[in-house]
């Protein structure tokens, strides 16, 4: 019958919540989305800073004071980590798109590579840039 169970189909529950135990894979996956979208804040601040530099010395002084304040430093430092995390997670997606390293051990290994790699790259950026 065509009308059986319309609108009452079982739906896949969200990966984070009471239905699934937290796993490395689901956490690193949702962090990819969070970091990617959170980068909007830092990006808008940088665009504002560039606009201020292109406008006048007085306007630049205002934007530069915000970006180099403790709050600006916090956003920029967080954005650097988010950027490296999202970049490494993007590389993982490219590997997965080729159908490679999709088994649990490889995926877990890549998860740790993303987490540890992003921290190392962030420290490296903070020191050398």
């Amino acid at each position, binding site marked *: 019958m065509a009308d059986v169970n319309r609108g009452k189909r079982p739906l896949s529950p969200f990966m984070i919540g009471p239905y699934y135990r937290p796993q490395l894979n689901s956490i690193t996956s949702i962090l990819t989305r969070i970091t*990617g*979208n959170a*980068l909007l804040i830092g990006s808008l601040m940088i665009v504002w800073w*560039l*606009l201020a*530099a292109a406008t006048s010395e007085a306007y630049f002084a205002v934007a530069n004071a915000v970006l180099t304040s403790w709050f600006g430093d916090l956003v*920029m430092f967080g954005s650097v980590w988010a*950027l490296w995390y999202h970049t490494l997670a993007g590389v993982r997606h490219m590997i997965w798109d080729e159908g490679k390293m999709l088994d649990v051990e490889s995926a877990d290994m890549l998860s740790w590579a993303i987490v540890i790699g992003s921290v190392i790259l962030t420290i490296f950026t903070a020191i050398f840039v």
Partner: protein
Amino acid sequence: MAYLTDRKRAVGWGASKTGTQHHWSMKKSSVALLILVPLFVFTFGNALGGTYEEVLAYYSRPFPAIVAALTIAVGFKHFNDGVQVLIEDYVHGPMEKVLILAMTCVSYGAAGVGLFAIARLAL
């Protein structure tokens, strides 16, 4: 009693009716950003913290200006594509379209402002 067949009900109700174009667009911008992001981090990192004169001099050089312009253009396109999927996953109904339109305005607006600023600094 309904006479519609299962197939007739199912046609047109795919997850999104599209997606390969979006995936490919995302993949192209991802590969571009893989090259641009490190270059931008190192050039912008050099400029940030400098005085007004230093920043003007730095972004009047071709390489930092071109890297910044490309990163802004490709980055905000990538963000727009990404945030669209975020909205489609969690928001439904009219608000879904409103938010996608709003974030598209933010993405292209920010890219426009950024490119204008780089052009003015560089030229």
